[in-house]
């Protein structure tokens, strides 16, 4: 696809990213924030994988008779990034669990009120 329309993929991905970003910074619920980060990061992965795509290419596994492959490097980067995202999610959720145990709430505004009071 030529012309600016050839970028539509990226634009949608940006909308997706911003959806996640918005959840992170606008929502006071801590689990929702983690979900937001997850969505944000997953959308960035889509961005990377999109850039790796080569028109009419195939998965970068060398086969007889195929000579156009998609770019393997972003795939590798994203494999790493997915694991980073899992690590972040796990740690974030563990923190949420502990926060809930000591504050009795997972709402940022309520936590703030309690911190101010103490």
């Amino acid at each position: 696809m030529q012309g600016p329309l050839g970028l539509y993929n990226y634009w949608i991905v940006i909308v997706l990213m911003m959806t996640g970003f918005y959840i992170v910074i606008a929502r006071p619920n801590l689990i929702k924030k983690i979900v937001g980060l997850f969505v944000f990061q997953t959308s960035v992965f889509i961005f990377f994988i999109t850039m790796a795509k080569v028109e009419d290419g195939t998965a970068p596994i060398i086969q007889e008779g195929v000579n156009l492959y998609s770019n393997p490097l972003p795939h590798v980067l994203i494999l790493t990034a997915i694991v980073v995202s899992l690590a972040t999610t796990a740690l974030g959720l563990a923190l949420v669990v502990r926060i809930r145990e000591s504050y009795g709430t997972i709402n940022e505004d309520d936590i703030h009120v309690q911190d101010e009071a103490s």
Partner: protein
Amino acid sequence: MLTENLVALQVVVPLIFAPVCLLLGKSRHAWACALTVSWLALGIATLLVTRVATIGTQSYAIGAWAAPIGIEYRVDMAGALIIFIIAAIGAMVMSYARRSIEHEIAAENSGYFYACYLLCLTGLLGIAATGDAFNMFVFLEISSLSSYVLISLGTTRRALTAAFQYLVMGTIGATFILIGVGMLYMMTGTLNMMDLAQRLPGVDDTRTIRVAFAFVTIGVSIKLALFPLHLWLPNAYTFAPSVVSAFVAATATKVGIYVLLRFFFTVFGIHFSFVAMHVGEILMVLAVVAMLVASLVAIFQDNIKRMLAYSSVAQIGYMILGISLATSAGVTAGMIHLFNHALIKCALFLCMGNIFLRLGSVELHDLRGLAQQMPWTMAVFVIGGLSLIGVPLTSGFISKWYLVSAVLDAGLWPLAVLILLASLFALIYIGRVVEAAYFSKPDPTAKKVREAPASMLIPAWLLIGANLYIGVDASLLAGIARQGADILIGAGVP
């Protein structure tokens, strides 16, 4: 084997011993392991600095895959300086840690603590050593994730929220960096920094590169707590365990600044960053605001750790101000202050650890008359504080001297006045503590406390000793910083 693999060993040694530390569990051995590795890292760092100084920039192709195919470790003078200060702070903090950790962290968590500490050290060293943009992201995440854990181990529940806040902001920052790196890759096809530097001039008038630049800058700025993206920092430093505050305050933001330097000067090049993108002007404004506002806020803090945290935000302003000048003198000043501030802040936070150990509080009003009971600890605070203010014969003065003369060289004398004004604020907030500890009558109901144990005093005093040494003879440090700055500045010129 040792000498040619020095760069790799610098990072790999702590990495390999982190799981060992986990296996050692809650026994003292975990601490001994972390301690040994920290000193080993310092030894390697010392060798590395000498090596870089004698035979120049070290490039190391991991897996023998030459860059840009493989990942390159590349340590020039600037990187070596950062690596050295990280390793030095690590060695000091670990020598200090045992008593403080026994006091502040539940015994069953101590093994995890030391493992996470080693991971954090690995991450920070890795960032400083790498010459690959994506590899930097990975090690950034190692250091960030481990520091979230370290911070969350603080004694109050607010440590948890502080860690969570840091996690959210840190992850946003890291994701921004990832987006930026992705765009760079998209336009150049490479991730290696030197290769990027070569290939970027061909595409640097594109909007994509400009946005990539902005995202990397913002992402790194979150990590280094540049005003106004510093919101995570005060809570994190306040509620983290004392040892962690000392370690993280002295190293994490510094590495952030180093990353910024790398991107501005090495990757994008001085021309693109400062002429085309005007990042110098923006950073300068933010740095000055950080210096003044954060110092002012620090004056009104009653929790001394929080006060020191705001002071850190202000001091980061000094470093960024130096960098924003984009002159050799300015970058030198920034790097000198980076080094000195690590020494100063680490000592001050260790001091807070001593006080917390004995007193169970670091609130200003609990410190009244403390100097009688903990004279050595408070002496550390006084000298560290004087250094923060920039009194002569301390390292802080050297920083200020270089920074002010760099600013004057650039013809910006009003900035010089503002820098000095901000040090006056430092005088006020340090003065409040000194006044309480030395010249106020202790609360008659307060319990008597003893001086902190020698194992916690000696590392703090070693840092103070280094601080005073630099105050008297900074030629070595200044020489290294100048060399590093020249490489950075020169790297941007085709």
